[in-house]
């Protein structure tokens, strides 16, 4: 265990008392970062509620991208297991598919539930970027379109799905016939699945993709598979929703949870000067905030995290089941699962244990 005030190694309790002081004196304390396990998110939300603070645990790449279309329009989707066992046509979109465990699991299997045990899957990869080598062992058609033009590409696909004429010269690196072929494969699927990562697609693209799947789904079965590669952010979204009613861009300034994806964006709150103390949570990877801030910084982060300037407090942390059972969203299986008791291993206190110590002090003051 290592805890620091400035550059000085201190006992954990000293660091926690200093945290209480900094956060307690702040007018708008902000808890932001990459989420945590279930216990850690629970504790972070309680700290924010106690302090009247603000929470943004959507800082992982793409973590907020799926929320906007989900909130505004809804979504059709399936699980990686159903996709593996049933998707006779599988379309991957974007380079992030290359390193998603869930995607490799899907491609390893056969669509025996929709097309029989000897059936082959018809796979294609749209906008792979330079990532095709990672999945080169699988037989699939590569449609090497430009991801930066994905809005137009999806508009073309939506047009084809609605039987509207499209320019035969195409768009974004694909000709009109390519679009006809991609949409045609999905239109004739028994159970078509379109997998993507919110890291690669912005909210508008996800909404357009959703409209495409919904349209195709009027005739046959086509659905989406958002592949979420950041366990902490998704755990935070789930736990925050059942705890407060809202995903974790929210504030407790008025004594109850208020949700707003823009208003409670941590980067915006720091730049605008609305927040005046930042508690940064990064227990999975050694990552600092990816924006510059002069706010007093308290970091609960992996050892080795490099900050632009020395945090006021830095407590090294990790996710582990050493202190008791806990749970975390699984990137491979895309559901909440128990954290393996063997996982972790550095002997560091998990975020929940640190935040519970802080809460004990905060609640003692409140009482």
């Amino acid at each position, binding site marked *: 265990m290592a805890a620091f005030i400035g550059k000085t190694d201190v006992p954990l309790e000293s660091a926690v008392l200093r945290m209480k002081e900094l956060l307690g004196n702040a007018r708008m304390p902000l808890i932001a970062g990459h989420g945590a396990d279930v216990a850690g998110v629970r504790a972070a939300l309680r700290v924010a509620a106690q302090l009247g603070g603000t929470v943004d645990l959507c800082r992982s790449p793409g973590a907020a991208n799926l929320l906007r279309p989900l909130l505004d329009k809804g979504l059709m989707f399936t699980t990686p297991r159903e996709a593996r066992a049933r998707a006779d046509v599988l379309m991957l979109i974007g380079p992030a598919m290359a390193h998603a465990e869930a995607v490799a699991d899907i491609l390893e299997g056969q669509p025996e539930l929709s097309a029989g045990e000897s059936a082959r899957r018809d796979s294609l990869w749209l906008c792979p970027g330079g990532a095709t080598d990672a999945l080169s062992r699988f037989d699939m058609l590569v449609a090497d379109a430009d991801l930066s033009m994905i809005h137009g590409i999806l508009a073309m696909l939506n047009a084809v799905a609605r039987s509207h004429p499209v320019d035969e010269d195409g768009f974004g690196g694909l000709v009109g016939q390519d679009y006809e072929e991609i949409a045609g494969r999905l239109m004739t699927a028994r159970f078509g699945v379109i997998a993507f990562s919110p890291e690669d697609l912005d909210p508008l693209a996800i909404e357009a993709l959703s409209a495409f799947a919904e349209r195709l789904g009027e005739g046959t079965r086509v659905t989406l598979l958002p592949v979420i590669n950041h366990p902490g952010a998704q755990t935070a979204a789930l736990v925050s929703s059942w705890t407060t009613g809202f995903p974790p861009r929210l504030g407790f300034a008025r004594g109850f949870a208020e949700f707003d994806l823009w208003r409670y964006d941590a980067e915006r709150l720091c730049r605008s000067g609305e927040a005046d103390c930042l508690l940064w949570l990064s227990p999975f990877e050694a990552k600092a905030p990816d924006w510059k801030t002069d706010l007093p910084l308290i970091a609960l982060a992996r050892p080795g995290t490099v900050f632009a300037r020395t945090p006021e407090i830095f407590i090294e942390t990790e996710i582990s089941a050493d202190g008791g059972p806990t749970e975390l969203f699984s990137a491979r299986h895309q*559901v909440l699962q128990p954290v393996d008791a063997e996982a972790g291993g550095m002997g560091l206190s998990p975020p929940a244990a640190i935040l519970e110590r802080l809460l004990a002090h905060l609640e003692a003051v409140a009482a």
Partner: protein
Amino acid sequence: MIRLKGGRIIDPANGRDEIGDLFVDGGLIVDAPAALEAVETYDLTDKIVMAGAIDIHSHIAGANVNFSRMLLTEEHRGSEPHPGHLPFSTALWSTYETGRLYAEMGFTTVVEPAMSPQNALHAHLELADIPFIDKATLAVLGNEDFLLRLLRDGHGDNLLDDYVAWSVAHAKALGVKVINAGGAAAFKENVRTFGLDDVVPSYGLSSRAILQALLASVQRLGIPHPLHVHCSNLGVAGNFVTAIETMEAASGLPMHMAHLQFYGYGTEGKRGFSSASPFLAEAITYHKNITIDVGQVMFGQTVTVSSDVLRQHESRASARPKKWIVWDGEGNGGGVLPYKYKPESYYNALQWAIGLELFLLIDDPWRVFFTTDHPNGAPFTAYPQILHLLMSADERAAWIARLPKAAMTMSMLPQLTREYDLYEVAIMTRAAPARLLGLLNHGHLGIGAVADIAVYTEQDNKAAMFEAADYVFKDGELIVENGKVKPYRWGRTHFLRPGHDGQIEEWLARYYDSTFGSPSDIFAVPDRLSAAAHHFEEHRCRT
């Protein structure tokens, strides 16, 4: 020890309705002590004393419920700060608010009736964060490939029973539910309508065959709660025929039919939509093996949350606001559609009337259960208002006068004069649910019962009476006083662990590995969860 002195004790499980005392010690109802000096006494003169209420069917936790929170953030904006010692308790639609509101009405146990075994851990983690009350879940089976293969390939009853037992034990459920048996599986094969005798294409199995196999398996395993059935054709005009055929398909085996109001629809009248509740009530009177809950509709904005993914997808055009979620899971998956029941709507007004007709036409309060299918018919917070409607014909008449005449003339509700009394309410909301779930130490006030107790002040306005209990005791501890909760206290989650042959685990391991590329135990719910005060309580199957 606590003495609850001089209240009117209404305890149908023990045939009791009288002024008397209750004594509580160690979390249980106990005999009167020899000496009363050291006893903490609550004077309950002129109060009504019942066991804590039990809700057998309320969607309070799990993936679908959480998706609906996200889909409808604009529908549950808060406005009331929480007291410092009760964080999140005013966060609308949160687990914390759910526990608080149920407790303040005098409910002490609630069943989440649609837990996908593949999302069981998520559901239990949410339940662990619902304070005050006890919880339980039903595991949803009947659409997953593994089960359908077992049935198609004729592997026999023993393997089927082992699979059902394994599923219940791994998901830590208290019973089994089937939702549109085969319907979600057929939807994956692009089938868009699916009735009791329709067949899931790849398996050649009818909904009836799947239903009957699960009914028999639950019976053989001795699971106390009968198979909990969500029939096919939910919400479709003319579906009362499906409901009656489903009752007949049970062939005398115990079966619980969920939210029957949504199957009470005939096809008469110029709109082709009429009340069929008299037919259903008559069928229930005849089929003594059947219990039902109503799924009462009340007016206002709500959201329909269902694992009947086929019906949810086919109803998507009715979503208000116009957005929805539909997902395919390994079994059922789910669908979330917001919906607004409007009093000026012929259809919605008739749905409201059909639910009340079912309550009033079914004579036996031991077989009709009090639900709104929360949140599908209405939020559970409508319960006090519904009790008032059941207990007051004048209240019903006042509502009927405000509703469309075209709908009310298609209903026999205006002619029904029956009024529930408190004893019947206590049967329907306490004694009968405990018996139906096999929670034999709950739902009554006899010696040895768990001291879950609700105390009310009798009022003419039953809505006011039931929305805020004077006192609620949970396991003998005071959790509500004057309609407001005390500091958080945590209930338990009830579950069964039916025994099964180890061979099924080997079979499932091979199946999961080859079909899904994952271990079969990834969905198992461990004995300990991260919530500090949470604990499971195991119950036994009948022998």
